[in-house]
């Protein structure tokens, strides 16, 4: 089982969290640290880039919910890019797509932050 790495790129008021590997309960620290880094850099929008993600289980979905709550509390916006059809369906099944804005491309997500 591979772990999770999350790189943070800051572009203006948006931070892109590039997720690689697996998103499971073991990813809590990596995601939390990346979010803290993005927030301390002043990001108003958090874009989760799933294009490098190999797998996400139900505990991983739970982590997205807790991140979403932190984002909402901080008055930020949460977006997702790089989701394949399977994970789009999972966000639909869990109704997370009602709260996380899904975009096809990074450019579209960044345009939506403006």
């Amino acid at each position, binding site marked *: 089982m591979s772990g999770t790495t999350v790189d943070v790129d800051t572009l203006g008021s948006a931070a892109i969290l590039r997720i690689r590997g697996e998103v499971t*309960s073991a990813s809590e620290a990596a995601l939390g640290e990346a979010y803290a880094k993005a927030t301390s850099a002043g990001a108003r929008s958090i874009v989760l880039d799933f294009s490098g993600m190999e797998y996400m289980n*139900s505990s991983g979905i*739970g982590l997205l*919910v*807790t991140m979403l*709550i932190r984002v909402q509390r901080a008055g930020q916006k949460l977006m997702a890019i790089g989701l394949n059809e*399977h994970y789009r369906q*999972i966000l639909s099944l*869990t109704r997370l797509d009602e*709260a996380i804005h899904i975009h096809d491309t990074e450019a579209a997500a960044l345009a939506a932050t403006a």
Partner: protein
Amino acid sequence: MMATMRQETETDEQRAAEATPEASPASRLRTSRDEAWAKPVDRVSVTAAAERAPADTVQGRKLSGPLQGFGRMWQKTFRVPLYGATLSPREVIAIWKAEFPAFWPKSAKFYAPLAGIAPGEVALLELKPLPGAPIKLSTGVMVIYADDESFTFMTPEGHTLSAWITFSAFEENGVTVAQAQALERPSDPLDELAYMLGGSKMNDRFWEQTLANLATRLGAGGVPVETQRVCIDKRRQWRQVGNLRHSASIDTMKRTATAPIRAMRRAVKRASDRR
């Protein structure tokens, strides 16, 4: 260097896929993991699975997770280290799935789907909404995820909690640990009130008892269950106040209150049919 190595790996996989009609190990792993998730559904559909219990508070309802609930959001974790048991996490999950209803406290019933705990299956439940409540609430859950090491239920609209609960087993310091972790919000204002008036504690005791029963079954009885409660979101979602219209508690109360009238009508009809 890393990028080059990854590219080479992918190329090898692609070559293998082209050379043989069978899928590569990586794609097989991806497929089997993908199959752990249920397919998206617009509405919950109760199959023959649980015809033994009332399904009208579940059939045709949408799924409702912690984002769709009304009350404060809580993450509750119940765990028991299985000291003395020599089972792997996979063996624990296999037993937990196969015998799930047997571990529930006697105050509640879990009508398992005939196909077992598998992605997309729906189970029906009967539970007390509050300690000492004279009625039992009929509701259900859908299995949204199930693999060899964990499985997750999501509630339908009308359930007292808008929630996911994940049951898992893992190894920690050489000991297999069984865990239930819920992410939940009471679904509507009445549910939030009931939750504050004892429903939450009753819920905690329910899962503590369930894990204690599981530990006993696995040969690790007597080990205390550890409980952790974290308030994830203190805010109530007033925009979800309309969830009241789906309330299984209200439906069950209405059905219970009108049962004598319905019974009387049936008796009158039978009598007039005989004449």
